[in-house]
């Protein structure tokens, strides 16, 4: 490229407040963004990618400073601009969109006024002119009925709609550079697909430069022209998207890409044709808001008459977007939530009708692995007590229970000496292992895993999935695997049930769901998986790359 770059970052350093684990969050990085291209910065949590974006915008959090290097936008070093000058460039020359559409808009201000604010601050347009422009912008980002919607308050809008408002705001003045910090991470896949398409369309129509921060290689494959991979505050590899995704040079990039689950169904396990372990019939759960004399009750049918069979030794995936009722379903099955109707037959007993004593006994055969590694372990108890909890509940002697806890720690790949430590001393992936050990302690027959890897970085994700597969084989477990991520489902599940708005729309063997989806919604979901085209040709020999064990 002959023309000078739109954005040139040189030797940028960002220092964290004193007293932290690391001194530099960003450790001397350099890259360029040219007009008309999308550069993706991809990295795991803590790699410094979001701080890089914030540094360019001059919006670093309190206590965090850029300590060196330069950020040249159109030849002007932003780090040396007085705050007032920098402020004038924000919104005008650089637009930015953020990760959390739910909190990024002022809840007390109409969305139209929030878009209008950019125009009011930076232009001399009169009110009528600005209003026309707001409506025009909202139409450009495909918001329905802009003339009405501009008067709405943010809480009336869906997450996708709010993100469109954010984009309209960022693009209001036609900035030459757009910074997008994980703009689709909080959205469902189908919404994500639309937003990615919108960003791409506007970018190519305007010849804008885009700096796109993400952790998701699927998204990278979908949208990037060039890619920079960040690790521990450094850029380890940068290059055109085809090269980085398909012929990565750096070992870290290779391991990351190897860890991305492939969108190809795994070979079904032999046990998939076993006897039914758990059969649910007509399971129903309806949430009702408390009503008053003058207030209509709001009714949400979270789960609508769901039938479900899990066979011995098989993994059944429940796949759906947020609000589909998949998590509610998992909790209904073991009566963590009371169901409004239906039955769950397990070992010849209806779990939903079992007396409290019988229920407690039955529950030990059905255990759960939870999503949030930070919320699923009691921060005030030692890990040993957590893992031994189920055995203690059964009244086993303490010594025996704790000896078993040690064994289980080893089994899930942790140091048995860790039983004396508290959860906060472990990383996210390690905590998930502790959660799995806790569930295995009571030797269950069925494991319900509710999004067990979705809070984890991709490399850790791969390890935890491997562990789950391993224990499933070893203990001959049946598993219900709840996930929003079709890639993960493809790797883990023998059969898949697709949920939408409280109903299962389609059930079938994983290969059939992926190969020949029957329901239109299943096709839509599959179609929305980011980086689908790339997956097909994903590193043929990725088995050669080893995944570094988490330290």
């Amino acid at each position: 490229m002959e023309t000078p770059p739109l954005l040139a970052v040189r030797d940028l350093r960002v220092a964290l407040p004193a007293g932290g684990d690391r001194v530099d969050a960003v450790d001397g990085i350099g890259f360029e963004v040219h007009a008309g291209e999308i550069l993706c910065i991809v990295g795991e949590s803590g790699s410094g990618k979001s701080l890089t974006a914030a540094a360019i915008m001059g919006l670093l959090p309190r206590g965090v400073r850029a300590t060196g290097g330069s950020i040249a936008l159109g030849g002007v070093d932003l780090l040396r601009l007085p705050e007032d000058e920098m402020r004038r460039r924000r919104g005008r020359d650089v637009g930015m969109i953020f990760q959390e559409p739910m909190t990024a808009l002022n809840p007390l201000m109409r969305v139209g006024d929030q878009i209008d604010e950019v125009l009011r601050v930076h232009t001399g347009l009169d009110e009528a002119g600005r209003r026309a422009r707001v409506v025009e912008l909202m139409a450009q980002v495909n918001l329905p009925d802009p003339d009405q919607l501009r008067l709405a308050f943010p809480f009336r809008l869906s997450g996708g709609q709010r993100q469109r408002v954010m984009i309209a705001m960022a693009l209001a003045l036609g900035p030459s550079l757009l910074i997008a910090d994980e703009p689709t991470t909080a959205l469902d896949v189908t919404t994500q697909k639309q937003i990615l398409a919108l960003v791409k369309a506007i970018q190519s129509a305007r010849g804008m430069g885009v700096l796109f921060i993400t952790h998701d290689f699927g998204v990278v494959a979908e949208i990037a022209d060039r890619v920079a991979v960040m690790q521990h505050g450094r850029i380890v590899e940068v290059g055109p998207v085809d090269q980085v995704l398909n012929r990565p040079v750096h070992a870290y990039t290779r391991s990351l890409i190897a860890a991305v689950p492939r969108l190809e169904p795994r070979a079904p396990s032999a046990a998939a044709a076993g006897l039914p372990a758990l059969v649910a019939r007509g399971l129903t759960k309806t949430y009702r808001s408390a009503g008053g004399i003058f207030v209509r009750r709001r009714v949400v049918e979270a789960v609508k008459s769901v039938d479900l069979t899990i066979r011995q030794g098989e993994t059944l995936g429940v796949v759906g977007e947020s609000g589909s009722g998949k998590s509610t379903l998992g909790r209904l099955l073991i009566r963590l939530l009371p169901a409004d109707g239906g039955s769950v037959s397990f070992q010849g007993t209806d779990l939903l009708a079992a007396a409290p004593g019988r229920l407690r006994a039955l529950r030990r055969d059905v255990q759960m692995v939870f999503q949030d590694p930070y919320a699923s372990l009691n921060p005030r108890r030692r890990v040993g007590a957590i893992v031994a909890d189920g055995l203690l509940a059964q009244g086993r002697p303490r010594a025996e229970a704790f000896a078993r806890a040690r064994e289980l720690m080893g089994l899930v790949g942790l140091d048995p000496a860790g039983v004396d430590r508290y959860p906060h001393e472990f990383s996210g992936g390690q905590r998930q292992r502790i959660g799995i050990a806790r569930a295995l302690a009571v030797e269950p027959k069925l494991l319900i895993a509710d999004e067990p890897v979705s809070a984890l970085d991709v490399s850790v994700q791969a390890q935890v999935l491997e562990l789950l597969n391993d224990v499933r084989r070893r203990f001959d477990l049946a598993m219900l695997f709840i996930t929003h991520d079709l890639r993960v489902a493809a790797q883990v599940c023998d059969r898949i049930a697709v949920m939408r708005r409280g109903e299962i729309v389609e059930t079938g063997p994983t290969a059939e769901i992926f190969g020949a989806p029957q329901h239109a919604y299943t096709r839509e979901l599959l179609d929305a998986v980011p980086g689908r085209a790339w997956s097909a040709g994903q590193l043929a020999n990725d088995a050669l790359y080893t995944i570094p064990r988490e330290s």
Partner: protein
Amino acid sequence: MERLEFIAQRTLKGIVVLLGIVVLNFLLIRLAPGDPAAVMAGEAGASDELFLQQLRQQFGLDRPLLEQLWAYVANILSFDFGFSYRQQRPVVDLLAERLPPTLLLTGTAFVLSLAAGVTLGVMAARRAGRWSDSAITVVALFFYATPLFWVGLMGVLLFSVTLGWLPAFGMGSVGVKLGGVERVIDVGRHLVLPALTLTLFHMAVYARMTRASMLEVRDQDFVRTARAKGVGEGEILRRHVLRNAILPVVTIAGMKAGYLLGGSIVVETVFAWPGIGRLAYEAVLQRDYNVLLGVFLVTSALVIAVNLATDVIYSLVDPRIELGA
């Protein structure tokens, strides 16, 4: 439509709570140690047996409890709050006479404390960590720890006794006939010390709340969004931070209006302000329970009314309000 339903629902709730307080009032008399008739009569020098008998008859104290309750509620609903045998007047007359001065006092204190407290809180938050923030925090902490009666007495010592600037008690000068503007000024001068006494404590409460709320809001995502749009800091404060930070403070202030009324008992006692607080104090001294319970009922009703008003205003100001939730 939704809003009307919301208001209707809240009104209904207020009425239910008020009825609950009437019942509580009834129970308090019955639970009090001793003969309820004697309790009602107070130590009005009227505790001869004949009079007590007459009272029992009048209030049906010899009838079953539920019947008594019904009679009591019916009386209250027809604004019959009983009779003060000490003052030889119906309680409702006393309350009606004493209510306006209290409304003047607490209303003034409410407006002043909220205005001053929010202003100080905003100032402190904007200069968080600097000396002026520390100064405001220290002042707020101090007044938050002072009993009202002590502030009042020290105010009298300083401004009435030592400096001679302001009158120390009453609501108007005694023995002087004043008309029109002069009378307003006279009442105003008498109002300064008691109103300030009541203000300072609550000002401290609101200042601390506002500061905390501001610091919380300014770190929220939508403030960062405004910054990314290139909005200046002054405008961010005005348009984004202030409204979101102050709304909860004002709401809580409305909900806690009862504290001002409680404080007025002490302040009116110190300054001999002729309101229902002073009336309550007199009732305590004279063991005039009908009057005391009347004050309790009226202040409770006032709190319910202020809560209702707060709800309505809130529903107008905050678009997010979960109507009816």
